[in-house]
């Protein structure tokens, strides 16, 4: 197992944990946090490949990660804003209760 593989496994584990959280938690904020974790796992993947990849001078991994972090932050802000708005409407953050958009 090379170093790269180790990092990649960590990243995979992180992704799965994030996914599990997003699937299982009932609080909307925690689902959002799970999604953030999945993004972080992808970031780790990028940095690991940048470090152990063939062309580190191209800075591609770093750049992608920076932009990913930016986007994740913006998304978290907006998502939490939505959750607050929904909370004000339904007085609850339980997403299993928010199923009015059903067929």
């Amino acid at each position, binding site marked *: 197992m090379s170093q790269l593989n180790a990092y990649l496994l960590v990243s995979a584990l992180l992704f799965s944990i994030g*996914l599990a959280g997003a699937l299982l938690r009932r609080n909307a904020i925690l*689902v959002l946090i799970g999604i953030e974790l999945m993004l972080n796992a992808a970031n780790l993947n990028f940095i690991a490949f940048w470090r152990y990849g063939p062309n580190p001078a191209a800075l591609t991994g770093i750049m992608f990660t920076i932009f990913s972090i930016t986007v994740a932050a913006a998304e978290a802000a907006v998502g939490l804003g939505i959750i607050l708005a929904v909370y004000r409407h339904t007085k609850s953050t339980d*997403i*299993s209760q928010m199923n*009015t*958009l*059903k*067929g």
Partner: protein
Amino acid sequence: MAWIVQNLWLVPALPILAGGVIAVTKQRHRAVAASLAIGSMAISFLLALCAFAHVLLHGTEAKEVFNFPWLQFGTEWLKLGWILDPLTAVMIVMVTFVGLLIFIFSVGYMSDDKNFTRFFCFLALFAGAMLGVVIANSLLLLFMCWELVGLTSYLLIGFWFDKPSAAAAAKKAFIVTRIGDLGFFLGIAWLYFETHTLLFYDGGAGCLEHSALTTLVTHATIYGLTASTGIGLLIFCGAAGKSGQVPLHVWLPDAMEGPTPVSALIHAATMVAAGVFLIARIYPLMSANIASLPPLTPTVALQVVTWIGAITALFGALVAVAQYDIKRILAYSTVSQLGYMMMGLGVGGPSVGMFHLITHAFFKALLFLGAGSVIHGCSGEQDIRHMGGIRKFMPITFAAYTCGMLALCGFPLFAGFWSKDEILHSAFAWSISSIPFYMGAFGALLTAFYMTRQMCYVFIGTYRGHAHASHDQEAHSHHAHGHDPHESPLVMTAPLAILAVFAVLLGFLGTPAWPWFQSFLEGEHATFSFAGFAAANTVQLMLASSLIVFLGLFVGWSIYGRKPIESATAPDALAVAQPFAMSTLAHAFYIDALYGATILRLNAWFAILSDVADRFVWGGFVKAFSFFILGLAWLDNFFDKYVVNAGFDAGCDTVSLSGRSLSLLQRGRVQGYLRTIGVALIVIVILLLWGAKA
């Protein structure tokens, strides 16, 4: 080619054009209509004179034709054309001159009629069509103009169409002549079949020229008749219809329902002469003989023509004796004279027949116009029993009428004498039989007799028309009860005078001493010499016919003229003596009744049968078909409502049902969606990896 020959088409075209223009003129523009018609006829007359002069100067040359191709079918061409030869020249001069005089007469005669313009339109069309018949070089063009002549005759006879008798007479004329035309058309078709050309003269290729005639003569048909005889007889059917030969004469007396100028123009001078002219035109065909017979032997066709002509001559004269309508006497007289013309054609050839045609045109037109003048003067009265003593009231008419009457009877030195004598002379010399001669002679006797009778009734004695109110026989608006008759205006008496001059003098163109007319027709020059009188039997026959005429005049005078007829209701002297004979003659040997009982009844049954067939058979088909269509429509409706619509509705229901079913996938729970995405991700990655591995 001479200018006049190339432009001969103008002669019929101008009157037809005038007729066309008058047709669109308003009824109140009378002067326009009359002047157009008279003007066009005058110009045609001048052109006819030019043509006549041309033929006179160049008469010895070959007949001048102008042919042009008209209709192409397959590889063959139908050609039309016109011809200028002596026959044409004399006919167009006669037709235009007599027509012109009659047009002028009509201006006065029809002045009270509110359909003045329409009359002149039809007259002009008729004149154009008749001239077309005369100049035609193609049997097809002749036939087309022939039919036009028949049409215009129908329109003119039925001019006062609101009178039922006039409408019936017009229909009768048209149908009877149509029967003759059927034979004519069959003849044309047969001729085309044999010779493949309908042109008369075409530089050697025409159907009256040598090569075509030999073809026709050598084709023997049924009963050993040659094709030329067969075709000639069929074409004679058409001529018999138009010229009122027995048995197709029945329309002529009834045609007197038309206005008197019509009777004068059409049924005396021109249209009825068209039949005689036709036979004269195709005379080479009628007389073409098989090479084995000696020349000038009469063919079967000519024999038939002669016999029918003789029968008609006698028949007409007999029936005219017993008539009381002034125009009917003249009508039967016309029938009789047409018989003479046909007989003349049969026994003596075109020159004999045509000479009588020309003279007859003048004096018969004169007689009809005179009768019209008398009728006009008597405010519409046509029964001779209600006339009398007109001599005192209408002297000019009387004088002209006398000229015409003497010419008709064949009084020596008048026109009719010379022409009728020619016919009797040729009949006497006929190689087949001399019965036609005796029939003709007896007919001449009767002619003199009935004309004298008419003159005595009309012009001599006392006027018997006072007590009798004038019926609306001629739709005149005269309100003359008890009015004395008056002389006609100058516009009517002038043509009478002109025609009287011709009636007297025209005969001198064809005397045996100077047979200018006959020679002109045959393209030769005539010399004046009294040696002509020395020909066989000429002087004897002239004396004999003069005696016949005097005898007839005497008998007529003694019965009708010596004792003036007292009252309108007094019976006819002859009717008292021979009531049965007179009534048979008065009813024209009951031929009309015979036709009515047989042919007309058959026709009526056939019409009823056709009506029933039309209503129940064809109508039944149509109804059945429509029911079928309705059934199809019902089926279509049913199909549309229960199959198409239902299917469509079912389809839409299925779509909405599937939509509703699919929407059940949306539970509204986000985590469920995410779970599905996760599973999809797993599946895709596995696929990719397995694919990459393989």
